[in-house]
């Protein structure tokens, strides 16, 4: 075998002090050797490049197709059913208002899931955070009932945001101090919120004992947020604005850079002096605040202006569908929330007009969620053309 000692290249010529090997460099492919897959061409290429849009649309279309079968099985014409659903949601005055009222909290809870996703956290606790915000607003508006209406609204909103943020922060703190996985803790906090609020409004300190059913006191009349021009719920522009602000924050601000760096590579974040702890706390507090705000709007702008059982419906969980449908893009939560909002708003009509059980909408949303949350599906479709992140390293028989 060769001499293991490297000859020190004594005959090394001097010109090599010029560093840039321009003579060899020009044609060296810039693409890394490993993991480099050729960009697909043709129709598939277009689909792959626009995955962010293609996948959610495909998910929705598939969900509606499966939904059609279910509606058909109940003996109805699916095309007609969908027509009724969306005609009501978008083309009638009351339906459109309902759609916008549903859309408002949905955008916010969508954001509440989307922001932590950027940090690599999965916030399942939008529901609990929303409920915490709602009950906070109920308490504040009743406690301050003698103050001017505008002040009540402002304080109620602030309290809701803070309580939502606090509720989410519990999960964040458990994560940063004890390493508790946020999915577990947020799910548990949802249940805790349900139990706690049940007690509060059912004979507890916040319950309106003059009512025959468990409920909080009603928001004072002046502080109720009636639709602007009888058409647009106050919360909607706020939610729209906030999704733009969140998108801007993530893209343009140093905080956004920090959050995304932690989400993409926490080791590099540590190297760059960006604290994972801070990012976790900030992201969760922000999302909790947004979900709490959604709770405030649910209380302040929707009849009966009281916090009672079931007020939150499944809003918090719809937020997960919305965020995944939007692929974590804050602006994408808007169309996603409009779609879900319209479906939720139109669901009762299905029953009134056609006698179709409104739960079909739940099924549609569930299927949509299943579709968007299964990267496997995207992988099946895009197979080897998948981006490097989703692609598993080729192994034995891969």
């Amino acid at each position, binding site marked *: 075998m060769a001499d293991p000692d490297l000859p*020190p290249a004594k005959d*090394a010529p001097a010109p090599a002090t010029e560093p840039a090997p321009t003579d060899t460099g020009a044609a060296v492919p*810039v693409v890394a*050797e490993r993991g480099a897959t*050729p960009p697909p061409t043709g129709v598939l290429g277009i689909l792959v490049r626009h995955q962010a849009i293609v996948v959610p649309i495909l998910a929705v279309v598939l969900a509606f197709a499966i939904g059609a079968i279910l509606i058909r099985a109940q003996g109805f014409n699916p095309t007609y059913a969908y027509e009724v659903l969306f005609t009501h949601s978008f083309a009638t005055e009351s339906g459109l208002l309902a759609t916008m009222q549903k859309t408002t909290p949905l955008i916010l809870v969508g954001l509440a899931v989307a922001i932590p996703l950027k940090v690599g956290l999965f916030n399942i606790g939008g529901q609990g955070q929303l409920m915490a915000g709602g009950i906070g607003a109920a308490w504040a508006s009743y406690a301050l009932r003698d103050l001017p209406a505008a002040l009540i609204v402002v304080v109620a909103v602030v309290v809701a945001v803070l309580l939502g943020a606090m509720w989410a922060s519990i999960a964040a703190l458990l994560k940063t101090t004890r390493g508790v996985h946020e999915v577990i803790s947020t799910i548990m906090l949802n249940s805790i919120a349900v139990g706690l609020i049940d007690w509060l409004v059912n004979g507890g300190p916040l319950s309106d004992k003059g009512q025959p059913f468990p409920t909080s006191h009603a928001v004072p009349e002046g502080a109720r947020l009636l639709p602007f021009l009888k058409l647009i719920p106050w919360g909607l522009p706020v939610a729209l604005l906030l999704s733009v602000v969140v998108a801007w924050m993530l893209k343009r601000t*140093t905080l956004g850079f920090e959050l995304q760096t932690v989400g993409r*590579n926490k080791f590099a974040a540590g190297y760059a002096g960006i604290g994972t702890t801070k990012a976790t706390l900030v992201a969760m507090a922000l999302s909790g605040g947004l979900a709490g705000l959604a709770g405030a709007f649910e209380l302040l702008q929707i009849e009966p202006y009281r916090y009672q059982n079931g007020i939150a419906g499944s809003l918090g969980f719809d937020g997960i569908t919305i965020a995944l449908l939007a692929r974590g893009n804050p602006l994408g939560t808007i169309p996603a929330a409009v779609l879900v909002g319209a479906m939720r708003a139109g669901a009762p009509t299905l029953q009134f007009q056609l006698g179709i059980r409104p739960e079909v909408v739940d099924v549609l949303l569930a299927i949509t969620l299943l579709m968007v949350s299964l990267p496997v599906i995207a992988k099946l479709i895009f197979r080897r053309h998948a981006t490097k992140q989703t692609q598993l390293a080729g192994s034995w028989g891969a």
Partner: protein
Amino acid sequence: MSEHTAYTEGPKVPARGERETLLEIDGLSKSFGTVHANKDISLRVDRGEIVALLGENGAGKSTLVKQIFGLMTPDSGTIRIKGDTARIKDPKDAIRRGIGMVHQHFQLVPVMTVAENLMLGHESTKGGVLDLEGARQMVRELSARHKLSVDPDAEVEDLPVGTQQRVEILKALSRQVDLLILDEPTAVLTPQETDELLGVMRELASGGTSIVFITHKLREVLAAADRCYVLRQGEVVGGVDDLTHTTTSDLASMMVGRDVVLRIDKAEATPGDTVLSIKGLKVKDDRGLPAVDGFDLDVRAGEIVGLAGVEGNGQRELVESIAGMRPSVAGSVHLGSKDITKSNARDTNNAGVGHVPEDREKHGLVGGYSIADNLVLNRYDEEPFAKGFIRDFGAVRNHAVTLREEFDIRSPNVEAPAGSLSGGNKQKVVVAREMSAKPQLLMAAQPTRGVDVGSIEFIHRRIVDARDAGAAVLLVSAELDEILSLSDRIAVIHDGRVVAELPGKGADRTEIGRLMAGDSDAGSDSHSPSH
């Protein structure tokens, strides 16, 4: 796993020329879009020989072996295995035909034991239950036969990298391979582990297994290979059938098409004031065991101090501790007069410490971010890259355009994701970022690991330039050649402390090697490769 008893038992190696041709490639080409990754490649591998594929990053070596292993399909040309020209459909097909591959990134399940990993994919059962005892037995047999000692019951995640690689090799061998492909097998290894691996390779070859190994380390080619092919820009530009009279310089010239200076020209150092002063530093490793144990070292302005040592002697923990990424338990680190012992990563950086981290993929870069964003990874919130809390993309871009030019980062533009670059260019991004801040102390850990020869030279030149500009440089490297060619002063680390300091000029390899090994032999479960 009874099938393994059928493994070819050390046959006599026929003389050259009489050997069976195992693999023959003829006119193979593969393009990605307009880039010719492989162009008209022809080569041959006979039974029982070790063939090196040598080339810079991006030369097309990995693409070539991926086609042999069925991970990619050639555009044209033939791959003949034992005379059979049928297309290799996928890795399973390749394995069936006696080809095994050890990837650079191991394909092991960390939480499983060695035996479990080996049986993965072809599990055998006894009465409906996994036959773990059989798998253990198989590991022991294979270990003994190939002198690759591995504990079958050890969990893979607890094993050092070199041993994990052995598991990978055993895994391939358990599939009865005739041809073993090793993709940059030494990139992740310590010098000691590398020597062991080369020994193992020779052992396997003498037992009749052919080996194709990818590398860009010239010395390994000379140390282990029978023959070598040199690839450049997708083509075979040269080959050496008899390596006995070849020197590393010959190979290097073939690789880059010109003579590479392996020993860099640099002026005499003119050390100034002490910049970095480490006293009695103690740092624990991830398992809570002492890794750095009473470390003392001074680095002065205008000098390069090379820290030589076998990997795993506390270098990583030392560097991370200085950089503020890992707390120390005792001792002090001063930068000039400033105590940075307890500073976090950011404050340390701001105080004037540039840090080229050992693992650029893990710590140095965010692969999904653009080159431009990576170039401000630890300064994104400072002027001029941000005004207040709002980032200034114009400034970030301009910064990147300048550095891309200055540091010869080869990419289509500065918006390209850093993850898409080749190893050498990734490293240039990290080096550019750290050097552009004009640090008082530049800490470079394994700055040229997995980097092509052209980039190595470039990065070395930059390190010397930084020194000449007055920076103190602490170079940590497992490559003794790198230490020897760059250092003005060499410190040898063993068991977490400096065991010797000597001048860089005229330093003796063997002497340093002896110091690196410490007094007792540093081998754990090592074996000495027999010839």
